[in-house]
């Protein structure tokens, strides 16, 4: 079954994190924090705290590789005598110091500068730019330099080579040093330094993690073998380093011919680069870095560089043990995902020897399983097996695990989700890019009805791993992790461009596919085999592909992709949703056939809408509660960014599967939306509450909260809580699990709405009250039924009780409606009377005669001989108010035993007679035939069961007056009357069961309302008396339903008030923190003082701002 619409809804938010989210947040731009994290591939915990323009200078020995390869521009930056200079932005987050020459990379605004657009190169820097992403814990020392030209210059020494740095007394050899000049006002610079200082202090705690993570990096091993390193330490007794796990390739060989791939040369170049520019955590990106990646990474280093460029390294650094912990935590447990994984293990890159072995298959199993636990929304999706298998050739299990997280969450958003919306969306995007860039080919495809996406989908879904020979797919991955998702599009476009001629000859899917298949098979051949020029001849087809992809399609930037995604998102999601809905509706079982497809569609929407909104409200309320709890120790930055750390950085566990089950409260809300009798008479949440919340939406923008949804019932009407609704719920809950699935709800509706047969409607109602299913409803049940009838009818039925409802009827004078309502009321009183009249005593022999005789005269306290409970023949009588209800009030004194002291003696005799019927000592019951007879004896009730009841559920065109105040609903029987009911003070009412108190002075309407409420009170009172009697006689199990109900109602009120307070408190504190941060008068001063001191000290050549000797 596909209950996916909610998933889709939720998924929208993640479809492209840098995109605006459709939703309550009206801000169309992605948050700055998101952009920042994406640019530097940082975990979700990081937020941009400080930002300043700066120039990075790398000490002279760095220049060797940095500038030698460069031939164009930037010359004036690079060739200053001191070394390499890069101007860019320096950023500080909680745990990172980042620098980039490129303003952006993943950013929406990321487009290549005009000058570089035609070459498709950012001067070798790639979209990630030159710079670094330094974990603060990797910084060993920051010194402030005295400088003529710049007010602030910092010299940063890193823990480069930290993992083998234990025995390195004062060695400066591996101590990497970089200089940064800050260009900003003194205040800016000082604030930056102050932030940095704080971060560095915090960072000390992370050093152990860093050591552990870095020790698994191949670069450490590579450099430790390095002659330089050994020499400088001169410690010959050091035991040889263990070779870190660089994937299955270590054991089963890496794909391809190492010599042909020039692996040794590449390693040599990298060793040089790493020695000068830092390794793993301390790596600095200079132009050579991007070039070395473009030519293909060497086997053993590939995993580490993938980790670094994709940012999964930082996830691992943050929680190095997560992978092992996850496996341990869930060991032995089973899941659907695990079953699915198991099926695919044997067909994941089966051509690679490693995956024909238990070792390789075991690794693959563990990584996929661990990930499926951390992200249950994704779980396992076919194609992940192929991607992970590929990763495992080059990296350890733990590394692959985190890289998979980055793939699913950031690089391939929504690709592997339950609906695969990301896959479908990117296919749509790809098609539109083809249409734009290759219109002739596009037309050709359209004309021949070749659907491009069926061909290109596997390219994207498995990152070309399954389409190209492995060695080439890995080259694509090298660039993909560095430059982002746009690479997939560029490669795809280039494939089509290169094969354009042949594709224009293909007229069907088959030919189209085989053209591309044979192209992929010959990627290693010369692109220009017949060329005279040997250099040209040496160019392989794959090289040609890369050139076309990154030069010709250089204009395809991340920005292009984002724009296209947002353009097509709506349509794609709509398609998925309607598919999911169709599927779901078709799978609702045979009962559902009794409802129209339109009704089913309505129920589907409404059902999930309620579940979804309730979930949202829960989250928001929980969020608030957490916020309250955390407020004290919350980091100021979280308040500012509106982003709390409870956003899980790995796998978004919080997303979870969307709800498919509706509990009783949800059911009430659901009913309130489609039946007006299900709306409460006594709303417990005053509308002001909502308004109140509006003030506090300062964090609403980022948490997507809607101020109005904070009321426990959202923006909809507050539902009633009547016993009838409980019974309906229980009846529909056929699986007896205390919740309803869509299937339950549809089946339930099919039963009440799907039959036009009055007989089955009557039995349905009867069965609702036949608790033990013995075909009898006892005295208590009869009263409950009449209560329910009053409950259901208390707001009248719009035009449904007359046999031929017409539009005209709806608009007719209030009198006619009143008439009908009166009729209903009297019918119910007649119903009660008749029920008792025709009831069977439980013990047949017992008192039959007497009961029958008494019952014959029983007319519920009526002191005339009218058949009906209430005489409404003259509703406009001059003395309206007390007179009619009097008839009812006389019933109240009914008591189990006739009392001579009864003050209302005139009716005593009758009451006594009636008492026999109500006497618990004379148990009686009605059977279905009796019930049927009683119903059919009354025209109004007959109509009610024929059509009124089922019509009271309005599935379509059912705009409930949700925003009309409930109080005005209460006092009216119809819309027409609602207009009259605007009397101030109306609607003071209490009681969950709809016991209304109506203010006087409302004339006819008021009287009528009184009658109804009195009628209900009567029924309630009768029941109460009976309960009392039963309790007195100690034989009743007691009917405490009502008491409980009241109790619950109060409890809820209490909670609600508490909730309101909570909100207040939270906001109060939050605001305080904001205040602190924005204008901390005390601290600000301190900073200033320190700044002054700092400057004084800076007179000396180099004064340390902060130094850690670890």
């Amino acid at each position, binding site marked *: 079954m*596909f209950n*996916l619409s909610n998933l889709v809804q939720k998924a929208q938010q993640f479809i492209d994190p840098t995109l605006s989210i459709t939703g309550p947040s009206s801000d169309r731009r992605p948050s700055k924090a998101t952009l920042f994290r994406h640019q530097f591939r940082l975990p979700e915990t990081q937020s941009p705290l400080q930002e300043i323009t700066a120039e990075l200078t790398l000490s002279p020995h760095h220049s060797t590789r940095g500038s030698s390869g460069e031939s164009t521009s930037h010359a004036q930056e690079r060739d200053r005598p001191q070394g390499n200079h890069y101007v860019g932005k320096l950023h500080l987050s909680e745990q990172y110091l980042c620098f980039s020459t490129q303003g952006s990379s993943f950013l929406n605004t990321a487009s290549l500068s005009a000058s570089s657009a035609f070459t498709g190169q950012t001067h070798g820097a790639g979209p990630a730019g030159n710079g670094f992403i330094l974990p603060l814990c990797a910084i060993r020392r920051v010194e402030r330099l005295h400088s003529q030209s710049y007010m602030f210059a910092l010299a940063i020494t890193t823990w480069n080579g930290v993992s083998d740095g234990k025995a390195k007394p004062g060695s400066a050899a591996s101590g990497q040093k970089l200089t940064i000049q800050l260009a900003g006002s003194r205040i800016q610079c000082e604030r930056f330094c102050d932030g940095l200082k704080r971060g560095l202090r915090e960072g000390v705690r992370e050093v152990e993690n860093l050591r552990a993570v870095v020790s698994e990096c191949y670069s450490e091993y590579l450099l430790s073998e390095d002659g330089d390193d050994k020499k400088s330490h001169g410690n010959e007794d050091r035991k040889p380093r263990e070779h870190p796990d660089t994937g299955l390739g270590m054991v089963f060989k890496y794909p391809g011919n190492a010599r042909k791939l020039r692996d040794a040369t590449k390693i040599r170049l990298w060793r040089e680069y790493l020695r000068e520019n830092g390794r793993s955590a301390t790596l600095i990106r200079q132009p050579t870095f991007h070039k070395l990646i473009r030519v293909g990474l060497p086997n053993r280093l590939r995993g580490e560089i993938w980790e670094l460029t994709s940012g999964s390294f930082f996830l691992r650094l943050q929680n190095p043990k997560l992978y092992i912990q996850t496996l341990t935590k869930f060991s032995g447990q089973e899941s659907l995902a695990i079953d*699915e994984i198991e*099926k*695919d293990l*044997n*067909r*994941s890159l*089966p051509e690679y020897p490693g995956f024909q072995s238990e070792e390789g298959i075991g690794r693959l199993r563990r990584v996929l399983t661990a990930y499926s636990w951390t992200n249950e929304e994704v779980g396992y*999706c*076919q*194609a992940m*097996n*192929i991607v992970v298998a590929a990763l495992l050739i080059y990296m350890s299990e733990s590394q692959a695990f985190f890289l998979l997280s980055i793939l699913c969450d950031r690089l391939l958003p929504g690709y592997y*989700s*339950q*609906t*695969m*919306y990301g*896959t*479908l969306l990117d*296919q749509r995007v790809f098609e539109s890019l083809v249409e734009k860039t290759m219109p002739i080919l596009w037309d050709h495809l359209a*004309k*021949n*009805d070749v*659907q491009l*996406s*069926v061909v290109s*989908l*596997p390219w994207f*879904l*498995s990152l070309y791993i*399954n389409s190209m020979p492995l060695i080439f797919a890995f080259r694509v991955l090298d660039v993909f992790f560095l430059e982002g998702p746009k690479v997939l599009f560029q490669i795809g476009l280039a494939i089509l461009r290169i094969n354009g001629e042949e594709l224009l000859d293909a*007229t*069907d*899917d*088959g030919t189209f*596919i085989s053209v591309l298949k044979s192209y992929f098979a010959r990627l290693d051949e010369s692109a220009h085999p017949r060329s005279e020029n040997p250099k040209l001849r040496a160019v392989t087809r794959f090289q040609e592909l890369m050139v076309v992809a990154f030069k010709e399609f250089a204009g395809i930037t991340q920005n292009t992709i984002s724009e296209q995604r947002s353009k097509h998102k709506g349509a794609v999601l709509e*398609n*998925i949703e309607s*598919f*999911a809905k*169709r*599927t779901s509706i*078709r*799978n609702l079982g045979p009962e559902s056939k009794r409802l129209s497809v339109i009704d089913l569609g309505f129920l589907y929407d409404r059902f999930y809408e309620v579940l979804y909104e309730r979930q949202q409200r829960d989250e928001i309320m929980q969020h608030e509660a957490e916020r309250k709890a955390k407020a004290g120790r919350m980091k100021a930055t979280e308040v500012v960014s509106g982003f709390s750390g409870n956003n899980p950085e790995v796998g978004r566990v919080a997303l979870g599967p969307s709800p498919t089950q509706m509990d009783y409260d949800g059911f009430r809300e659901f009913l309130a939306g489609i039946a007006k009798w299900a709306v409460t008479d006594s709303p417990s949440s005053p509308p002001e509450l909502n308004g109140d919340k509006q003030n506090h939406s300062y964090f609403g923008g980022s948490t997507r909260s809607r101020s109005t949804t904070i009321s426990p019932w959202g923006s909809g009407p507050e539902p009633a809580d009547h016993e009838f609704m409980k019974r309906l719920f229980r009846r529909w809950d056929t699986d007896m699990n205390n919740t309803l699935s869509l299937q339950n709800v549809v089946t339930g509706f099919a039963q009440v709405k799907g039959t036009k047969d009055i007989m089955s409607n009557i039995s349905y109602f009867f069965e609702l009250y036949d608790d033990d299913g013995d075909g009898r409803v006892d005295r208590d049940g009869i009263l409950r039924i009449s209560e329910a009838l009053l409950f259901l009818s208390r707001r009248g039925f719009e035009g449904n009780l007359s046999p031929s409802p017409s539009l005209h009827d709806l608009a007719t004078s209030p009198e006619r409606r009143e008439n009908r309502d009166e009729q209903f009321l009297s019918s119910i009183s007649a119903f009660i009377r008749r029920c008792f009249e025709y009831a069977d005593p439980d013990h047949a022999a017992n008192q039959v005669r007497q009961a029958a005789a008494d019952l014959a005269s029983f007319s519920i306290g009526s002191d005339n001989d009218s058949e009906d409970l209430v005489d409404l023949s003259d509703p406009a009588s001059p003395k309206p108010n007390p007179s009619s209800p009097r008839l009812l009030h006389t019933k109240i004194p009914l008591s189990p035993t006739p009392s001579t002291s009864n003050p209302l003696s005139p009716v005593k005799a009758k009451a006594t007679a009636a008492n026999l019927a109500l006497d618990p000592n004379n148990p009686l019951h009605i059977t279905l035939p009796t019930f049927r007879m009683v119903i059919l004896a009354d025209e109004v009730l007959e109509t009610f069961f024929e059509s009124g009841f089922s019509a009271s559920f309005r599935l379509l065109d059912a705009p409930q007056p949700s925003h009309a105040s409930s109080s005005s609903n209460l006092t009216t029987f119809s819309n027409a009357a609602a207009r009259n009911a605007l009397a101030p003070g109306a609607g003071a009412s209490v009681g969950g069961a709809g016991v209304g108190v109506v203010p006087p002075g409302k004339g006819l309407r008021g009287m009528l309302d009184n009658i109804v409420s009195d009628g209900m009170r009567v029924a309630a009172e009768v029941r109460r008396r009976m309960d009392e009697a039963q309790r007195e006689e100690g034989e009743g199990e007691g009917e405490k339903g009502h008491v409980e109900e009241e109790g619950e109602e109060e409890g809820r009120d209490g909670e609600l008030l508490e909730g309101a307070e909570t909100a207040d408190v939270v906001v109060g504190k939050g605001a305080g923190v904001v205040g602190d941060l924005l204008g901390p008068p005390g601290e600000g001063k301190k900073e200033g003082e320190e700044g002054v001191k700092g400057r004084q000290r800076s007179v000396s050549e180099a004064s340390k701002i902060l130094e850690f000797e670890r």
Partner: protein
Amino acid sequence: MADSGATSAPKPSSSVKLVLLGEAAVGKSSLVMRFVNNDFQENKEPTIGAAFLTQKCNLPTRTIKFEIWDTAGQERFASLAPMYYRNAQAALVVYDITKASSLQKAQHWVAELQRQASPGIVIALVGNKFDLASANPASDTSTGGDDADATATAEEEEDVDGESDARKVPTKTAKAYADEEALLFFETSAKTGLNVAEVFTAIANAIPETSLKGPRGVGGQTNLGRQEDSARVNLTGANVQGPKEGCAC
């Protein structure tokens, strides 16, 4: 791709796009393997999205080249299905006779195709894994769909108490449904090959001439749209049995 369908006489040849739909593990890929390679084995090829294969089918008057899209197994790939059945002229909706829920799923796919796919699409309902139903008279296994139905239906009566029979979907039930919806209906076994070629032959025969235009030429889809009525009329199970000429496989 087996090109055994090369014929001596120049018969008109046309392409038919066929899509396989059905719950995971009912044997879609196995049926295709049987039809294309006359082979039965564990599927070693990882299928991403859908696998594409072709096979020719020789009819007395023409040659049909099936372009087969075998959709992926996992449930979540179902939302990609519209991409594959778009403009398909034929569909094989497969269920597993040993799994009742798979027929329900098949019914969903039929409804989906009827509502969303090309109007003239020829749909065959296929109950696979016939070999798992007990006491299959081996002699009947080579007969066409309707004959197989008859025998299976007879068995069904005595299978009520289960014995060792893994069958969960009575032939009657599925056949009645297929008749109601005017689908071709077969029970097959990819394992033994029973009825596999027959399914494809029947489909080839049921494709209306009018929707065939060379190797799926220009405008093929619009033709499909217009011919819906005539196509539907022909689709009752009995009518299409026609010539029992096997496919070239």
